[in-house]
């Protein structure tokens, strides 16, 4: 008798575990224990990981960042009480869908800024509030807007480490010479987003 012999006498089917998982999601949400809910969605720039706390959208991650390592990092930095639970992300998933089909030009969801501090957060909040759909700005202009005209390099870092890309539109910040510059999701993704907004 081995452990394997007896375990195979107790078959567990995938749908049963799915139902139990859904029940756990609901109980965790009701008990205020779901610190981070996440799901993935398909998009024109590849699969996106969406993660939200009860405060709002915390993180949007591209596939090239490695969704597992992003979740691991959230587990360490924010809370390990993390479950895949689509419900909390339904509004942003729907709005991203509308954005990628050109039917939405701004997002209307609460944001959780916990992953951004100090000057980086100031930069991203200005970016979020002031740089509209279909427009672009330069790192230098965003530095001026953020009240520190000399901090061009720090603005570049703030954009490169934006935890909520697409929704907080760092893709609209390009180099002064007109080239697209670096992007968390890779330059190709940035060109797709700029192209999408230019065409509408």
């Amino acid at each position, binding site marked *: *008798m*081995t*452990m*394997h*012999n*007896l*375990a*195979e*006498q*107790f078959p*567990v089917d995938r749908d*049963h*575990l799915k139902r*139990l*998982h859904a*029940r*756990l999601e609901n*109980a*965790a949400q009701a*008990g205020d*224990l779901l610190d*981070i809910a*996440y799901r993935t969605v398909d998009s024109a720039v590849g699969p996106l990981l969406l993660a939200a706390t009860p405060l709002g959208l915390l993180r949007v991650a591209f596939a090239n960042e490695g969704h597992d390592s992003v*979740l*691991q990092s*959230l*587990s*360490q930095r924010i*809370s*390990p*009480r*993390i*479950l*895949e639970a689509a419900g909390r992300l339904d509004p942003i998933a729907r709005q991203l869908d509308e954005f990628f089909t050109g039917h939405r030009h701004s997002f209307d969801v609460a944001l959780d800024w916990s992953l951004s501090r100090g000057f980086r957060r100031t930069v991203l909040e200005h970016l979020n509030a002031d740089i509209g759909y279909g427009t672009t700005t330069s790192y230098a202009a965003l530095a001026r807007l953020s009240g520190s005209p000399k901090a061009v390099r720090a603005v570049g870092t703030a954009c490169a480490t934006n935890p909520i890309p697409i929704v907080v539109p760092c893709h609209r910040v390009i180099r002064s010479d007109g080239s697209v510059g670096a992007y968390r999701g890779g330059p190709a993704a940035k060109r797709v987003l700029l192209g999408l907004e230019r065409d509408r």
Partner: protein
Amino acid sequence: MVSHISQRADVCTVKVWILTEEPQCVAEPVGDVRVTVDQHVKPPFEAVVLQHGATVLRVVRAVVGHTDADDAWSETFLAALRAYPRLPADANIEAWLVTIAHRKAIDITRAATRRAIPVADPPDSAARERADTHDLDLDAAVGALPPKQRQAVAYHYLAGLPYADIAVILDSSVAAARRAGADGIATLRRTYPRIDSARNHP
């Protein structure tokens, strides 16, 4: 195996210092060195559910029966989620989950006993009617074991815990835990012979 389990309301920590010849008792084979906290990072709770959800379901189904297994699973993982931030990163997660499941199963069994109205049929007859023939035999055979044997069999043969950990969970000696497991399996071999035939038909 030298192990230590400390228990509070719904959190316990399991530290494994020395590996035994039963490598299935630890999440990862780490050699015979002591594992320190900073070598471990705590995975998102979702990974815990994915990795251990099926095993915990088998364990609670064996211990509380078909009817109450879903409740026991749900209460176990909800309590685990609540306590997870306080769990040391080097804890043996499987042993921790089984410890929680053990306590939830006791609560559920006590509640069922309080609810129960004496009838001629055994209390799990509804589950037996629902289950297919295969499950009926196994649930009946496991359900007929005395509680300590049923628990020892589930925790050793389904969860893969070493008897040293099971002894702590059952609050008994290691020898008594080992005997309960061995007696339980011996009885199951008689009452449910398919356990042995499964070896030839994996």
